[in-house]
């Protein structure tokens, strides 16, 4: 029994460690992109187009993951693409989390009319298909980094609000909350000091999931050309372009796709791993 638990714990540790390493690597790549990237990600060279990755015949050591149809270095574009992907993940994920969790806490703990208003709003929101909603929003706001972030926040806050509301409600029924109320504390301070620490593990999981979702949404918007200006490298636009030359140069599609996949996976695994660290009972 103790052994089985140890094993589960160790495996969770490995998962946490692997996902944190991958994300750490990406963050470093994004921050130090100009120093790390072997090439200028925008430089075209039609004579050096569709160079294969380093292990295949005809490759060029200066283009380790090959080049695309315009002769741009795939690795450098992935590294620069990490800037936008992580930037969006961080800013949009955090904003969505703050707004959604706050509204969820208020609705779940205060109940009454705040809950009525917030829950009704969530219901209405859920009736919109999210991707259409995003495209509509971008069409109205115009393309650009802030539009992507606003679109993600506006669409996804309900994900937090719903789950955190339910958790806050069940915590609010506990005797420790009643005790805090009896000692005359302000309800808002009870919400932050008593309820919040107990929903924090859930918030962490949702936050990292949301960061993964933000990366995907940004990629989708790039894919349909609704993200930022098209000359800046993004994983989504790379995937979109790579799709066109899949038979001649698979690497142009596959490397950004794998990067995207690993990143989204790492975010969700990171959340699962961190959850236990925020839970005093499991810690």
């Amino acid at each position: 029994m103790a052994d089985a638990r140890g094993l589960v714990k160790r495996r969770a540790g490995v998962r946490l460690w692997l996902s944190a390493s991958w994300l750490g690597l990406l963050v470093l790549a994004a921050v130090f992109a100009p120093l790390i990237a072997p090439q200028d990600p925008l430089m075209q060279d039609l004579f050096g187009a569709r160079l294969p990755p380093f292990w295949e015949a005809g490759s060029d050591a200066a283009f380790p993951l090959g080049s695309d149809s315009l002769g741009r270095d795939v690795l450098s574009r992935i590294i620069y693409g990490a800037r936008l992907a992580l930037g969006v993940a961080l800013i949009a994920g955090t904003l969505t989390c703050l707004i959604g969790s706050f509204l969820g806490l208020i609705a779940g703990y205060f109940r009454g009319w705040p809950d009525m208003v917030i829950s009704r709003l969530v219901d209405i929101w859920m009736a919109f298909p999210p991707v259409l909603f995003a495209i509509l929003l971008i069409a109205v706001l115009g393309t650009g980094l802030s539009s992507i972030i606003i679109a993600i926040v506006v669409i996804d806050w309900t994900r937090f609000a719903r789950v955190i509301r339910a958790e806050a409600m069940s915590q609010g029924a506990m005797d420790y909350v009643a005790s805090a109320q009896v000692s005359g504390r302000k309800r808002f301070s009870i919400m932050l000091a008593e309820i919040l620490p107990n929903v924090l593990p859930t918030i962490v999981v949702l936050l990292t999931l949301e960061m993964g979702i933000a990366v995907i949404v940004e990629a989708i918007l790039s894919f349909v050309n609704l993200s930022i200006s098209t000359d800046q490298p993004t994983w989504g636009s790379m995937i979109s372009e790579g799709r066109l030359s899949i038979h001649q140069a698979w690497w142009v599609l596959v490397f950004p796709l794998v990067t995207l996949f690993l990143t989204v996976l790492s975010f969700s695994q990171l959340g699962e791993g961190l959850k236990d660290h925020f839970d005093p009972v499991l810690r």
Partner: protein
Amino acid sequence: MSFLTIENLSAHVGPSPILRDVSLSVEAGEVRGLVGESGAGKSMIGKAVLGTLPLAVQVTSGRILLDGEDLLAMRPRDRRRVIGAKAALIPQDPLTALNPSRRVGPQITNRLVDILGWTRQDAQMRALELLHEVSIPEPERVMRAYPHELSGGMRQRILIASAFAAEPRLIIADEPTTALDVTVQKQILKLIRQMQQRHGTALLFVTHDLGVVSKVCQSLTVLFGGLVLEDTRVEPFFAHPSHPYSAALLAATPKYTDPDASLTPVPDAVIEGVQAEIAAHDRMQPHV
């Protein structure tokens, strides 16, 4: 004048009554038992006094006077302040009564800071004293522990310390030993009794065990279906209970009858009698 007076308190969940014209009082320094089977409405009375009724429960009539102040007539903020300063709760389940994600120490000191406006350092000192008073070994270590690291008995001791921390003049103990191991129950009961005597606190002791009432209480109220059936001093009650339900309850309690005699559950006829009484009471109510 009594420290706590409840006058004709009625409460409903939707259309169904859960408290029916309940009146009871607790004198300063007195221990009153509140007895009834599960679902009788004992906890609801405690929650009504402490202002922690669930949202679904509506108080439809009556008054609650705490130290002469009419709680239900006050604005919620003032009410919370008055209750916080004068009353406290020893809860039934020591597991959910402590916040699982916070250390024990701050959960005690918070009360002193919130209610009495003490500094953190003073509150810390007092909390250590209190933990010592409720016989917790290594109070410094326990203050830094999370609730799940402590046994049920320890947690209940901490909650007792916390209830007495701000020197309230009334404590409501809601079946404080029900969730504990039998071996621990006696110690906790003794501790509550000791603390109550030492601090001169009035105590409303909620229980379904008449044996406990005979040991701890001076007076008692018997409740069934939210209706008060009997309100009396302890001595006459145990000598000759006046209500048939009380008599049946007493007969169903070990030790207070012949220990060799087999225990008789409350007979159906008695229950039917009480239900008729409740129905008669409800018919007297003006229809809303």
